[in-house]
Structure formats: C-alpha cells, structure tokens
C-alpha cells in the first residue's frame, strides 16, 4: 500500500478515536445547565471527526485520482538508504538529548555540545572555527534571552546552584 494511503488510514484511526471520545465520553460529565445550550464542548469535535473520517476514508480507498502527472518527489522514501538517513537520525537523537539535558546540564553546556556535535556529524572537522562559533552563539543567545529579554535560561549545570 502506498505511503499516502497508509497515512490516510492512520488519520482515519485518529479520527475514529477522536470521534469516539467526542460522541461517547466527553458529554458524560457535562453539567445540567450546559446541556440546555445549543452548543456543547463536543459539538465542534463531533463535526470534525465525521468529516475527517470521511475524507481520510476516501484517500485510504484511493477514490481521489492523482492527476499530478507523476511529479518526481524531492525525496524518494522507497530508497531512503540512498540518502544520509544515519545523519538525519543522529541529529534527531541529538535534538532529543538537547531537550532532556537543557535544564540539568544548563543552556551554555548543552547548546555548545549540540552545535559542535551537530557540525561534526555533518562532516565538519575545523575545530578552530566550530568551538569559537558555538561558544559565541551560546553565550550571545543566552545573554540576549536571559539578560536583555528577561526570560530565564539556566546557564550552568544544576549542581552549581544557578
């Protein structure tokens, strides 16, 4: 099955689960005074779930004809092995690690690590550029966000008490 129809099928499942919640569970705790209203919190979700399920079904069943004239996709997902998939996955992992480390490790350390490792993964080896650029960017952004704009960003690791 083509990827687009698989995705439509997954969205159909989401619409069905969403519709189930809207039709059968959401209204159970509705206070009596709200039940007199012509519109309930579930009204709009009910409409969306029905239309969404119908549209997703039509794509999953292949009812819509693609008349795009066989346009070549930017990335052919059937040949992902031909692309730099390892680098992409590593960078995604790095983003997750950054999200998890930002608070405990602090902004400066985690940002420098992220920028340097990201460049290394992509093949950069000029350390004398990478390290000063990463240090300047981390320090500059931290100063702008924390000191100028007043949005708190913990600069150092948690054990330093900042």
């Amino acid at each position, binding site marked *: 099955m083509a990827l*687009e129809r698989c995705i439509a099928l997954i969205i159909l499942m989401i619409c069905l689960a969403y519709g189930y919640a809207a039709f059968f569970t959401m209204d159970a705790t509705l206070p009596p005074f709200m039940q007199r209203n012509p519109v309930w919190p579930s009204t709009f979700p009910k409409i969306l779930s029905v239309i*969404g399920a119908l*549209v997703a079904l039509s794509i999953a069943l292949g009812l819509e004809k693609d008349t795009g004239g066989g346009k070549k996709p930017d990335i052919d*997902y059937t040949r992902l092995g031909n692309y730099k998939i390892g680098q992409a996955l590593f960078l995604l992992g790095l983003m997750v690690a950054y999200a998890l480390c*930002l*608070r405990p490790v602090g902004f400066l350390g985690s940002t420098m690590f992220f920028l340097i490792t990201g460049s290394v993964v992509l093949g950069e080896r000029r350390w004398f550029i990478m390290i000063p650029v990463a240090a300047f960017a981390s320090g500059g952004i931290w100063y*702008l966000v924390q000191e100028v704009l007043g949005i708190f960003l913990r600069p150092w690791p948690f054990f330093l008490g900042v």
Partner: protein
Amino acid sequence: MLEGILIGLTAAFTGTNLLMVIGGCLIGTFIGMLPGLGPMSIIAIMIPVAISIGDPSAALILLAGVYYGAIFGGSTSSILINAPGVASTVATSFDGYPLARQGKAGKALTVAAIASFCGGTIGAILLMIFAPMLASVALLFHSAEYFALMVVGLSAIAAFAGSGQVGKALLMTLLGLIMATVGEGALFNAPRFTMGIMDLQSGFGFITLAMAMFALPEALYLVLDPARSNNEAGGEIKELRITRDEAKQIAPVIGRQSIQGFLIGVLPGAGATIASFLGYAVERNIASKEDQEQFGKGSIKGLAAPEAANNAAATGSFVPLLTLGIPGSGTTAILLGALIALNVTPGPRLMIDEPEVFWAVIVSMYIGNLVLLFLNLPLIPYIAKVLAVPRTFLIPFILFFTLMGAYIGQNNATELLILVGFGVCATILRFADYPLAPLLIGFILGQMLEDNFSRAMQLEGGIGFILERPMTMGLLTFAVLLVALPTYRARRARIRA
C-alpha cells in the same frame, strides 16, 4: 487633518524621537528574526523602556519602530530558513522560502520590505482618513460574521490543493482543526482531549507546530539530500533587485492587499493572520493560470500579497484602539497597557483631548515604515548571505533556532520533545506529498473558528444564524466561491485539453 499631521510631524521630528525610531527598528528587526519572539513579545519587553522615557509621543514612536522592525524580522526568518516565528508570517514562507531556494533570497527580502512598507503606509493613510467611520462598521461584525470570516480565511487552503491534492489538503486542514481543539478552550473552560497530560492543558503551542511543520522537515531534507543545500542556483545568491516588470506585477497586488488587509485589520480579533492568508488566497484566485501555477513555488505575487496585507492589517488594528479604546489584537492590547501607563486613555475623545498623541501615533507609523525601508534595504545583501554559510554550520543552527523558538515560546522542555515528534511526523507526511501548510492554517484558525461558531450558536439559538444573517451568508458564499472557482476552472481546462 493637515493641522493634525503638522502636530504629529512636530512631535516626531526631533533628534531624540528620530533616534528612538531608528533604534526601535533595529532592535525589532534583529530580535524579530529569532523564531518565537514576535512583535507582541518584543513590544512587551520594550514597554518598561518606553514608560521610563515619560513622554507618550516618544514612547509610542519607539514602540512603533520596534513593532514594524519585528514584523520585518519575522518575515526574514520565514524567507531564509522557512521558520515562521509568528502566525502572520506563515503565508510569507509559502513563496518566500521557495524564492530563497532559487537563489533569490535578496529579491524575496526586497519584495517583502517594499510590500511591507507600502502596506503599512497605505494602511496609515486609510487610518488617518477613515478611522472614525470604520470603527462603527467594525461594531456591526458579530460572532456569526467572525465565524464566516474565519471560514473565508480557511479557503486559503485551496492554494495548496493542486492536481489530485484536494482531499489531502482538506484532510490536513481537518487535522489542524482537530489539533486546535486539544486543551482548555476559551469558551468552555474545560480541558478536552488532553489524555490527562498536564503539559497539554494549554494545547499545542503555535510556534512548536510551525517549527515542526516547516523548519524541521526542511532541515531534515537538507541533511538527507546534501545536494539541496546548494540551492537551485548552485549555492549562488543572485538577483538582489526587482526588475521593472516585476515591480509592475506586484504593484496592483500590493495596492489591493493593502486595502483589503487594512479593512480586515480594523475588525477586532481578525488581525494580520487572517489578512495574510486571505490576501494570499484572493491573489491566487484572481491570477492568470500561468501565475497561479507559480504560487507556492516562488511567486513574487504570492510573497507580496501576504506581506502587504499583514502590515496593512497591523495598522488597521489601531482603528478600534484609537477610536474606541478596544484592542483588536494581542499587540494593540499591550500598546493599550503602555498608553494607560503613560496616562493616555484611548477612546472616542483621544483625538479631541490629546491630538498630539493621536497624530504622533499616525506619524510614527509613517516614520517607522520609512526608516525600516531605508535601514533594511542596504542590509538585505548581508542578511541574504546567511544562506551562503556552509551546511555543516547552517543546519545545526537552523535546528538550534527551531528548538529555541519552541522553548522560549512556552519555557517548557517537554515542548522540545513534542517538536521533535511532530517534526518526524511532518517529514513522513512530506514524503507522501501531503501539503503541510493547510494543517498549520487549520490549527491557527481552529480555535477562533470554534469560539465564534459556538458563540454565534448560543446567541442565535442554533445553526439558523447562517441563513438569517445576510453578511454571514455572503461571506460563506464568498468562501465557497474561493474554493470552488479554481477547481471548476482547472476541471474545465482539463476537459478542453
């Protein structure tokens, strides 16, 4: 009126005030480039500085400079790295980023600057002439009309429903609308579809979703296929200036969208986002077939339309603020707070009691626009050079700014994990050629659409309001035409061929 303009000019043309507007424009432009920091946040940050100045005219001139600078800065990140930090610049990235990929980043930034300047200036002229009259018209719009207006805004998705893509574009819009229902709605005050997760109580963050839909998949595509990093022009940055022919092409677009954007901006709550989407949709629909095919692929008309509309709407949102004391957008709400802190009460008597403040606001808009144009045009070649940075540095920085945008917006590390999750989903959707812009349009307009729909249902006692209110009916018919007409034209062309 001439006397008023003279009062405003006298207030604005002092050494201090000119420094204020130049400083404001620079601060706004550079901070506005950071995804996640839109005009609203930057103005909020600058308020203590403005209040400390003491003089209301000088404070307003500073804030106007920051405002226009931030709008232009937001467009810059949309065009260069496909990272729209605010909702009103999402439509800018539809054609701005493809232009940048063709090596025409300089041209795209120039078109954006000129369209913004014209939109802001025409808006300021209209504000000066029609402000009191339009304020009363804006009050005729009720929830039913707002609901219909949001539906008209949603019709912008038609621009992404290419051949055999109508169903996909519609499905993505519905998915965006579904995502907008997650969290605590403004009207019902009860959490919905949060699955007991506390972080979802306030719903998904706009910036997180915008970064996940646009910036992250693009960065991953650049990683997957290194040949993409050298843009279609082979890594070269060319065509910084717009030609006479291009100027002729965009002039009517800018004129139309400045007026339309201003009128939409006048309506409290409608704002620059709807104006930019609607501007894009209308221009695409009235364009010739050849031009229509260029929309979404790097059309300068497609870039000029939302930029002009967005800026004109930003100016239009001052109408209810200055004439009625009603803030029509988040930004004007913050400005209202600043004005009150400066002992100025906006409302019907502002023009009579404090004419120097009223006219200083209007003149500061002109000056803010003018300074921005002359300040930024020479900087454009240097700003465009961002794209010439080697990919080994550029990609980690795009990813970092994407993460920072999401983090600053919510100050929550969970948001970063949501960003990565949605980014992966968006990349898979892009593999299957699902258009992602409709999802974001649906998400942005979803909550306003539901709130106005529910309010109209409650006020009118049922769905009958659609038939009973002529303006609602008219707007909904217009929305249907905006979607149906291009489909009909395309089908007719296919049959003829």
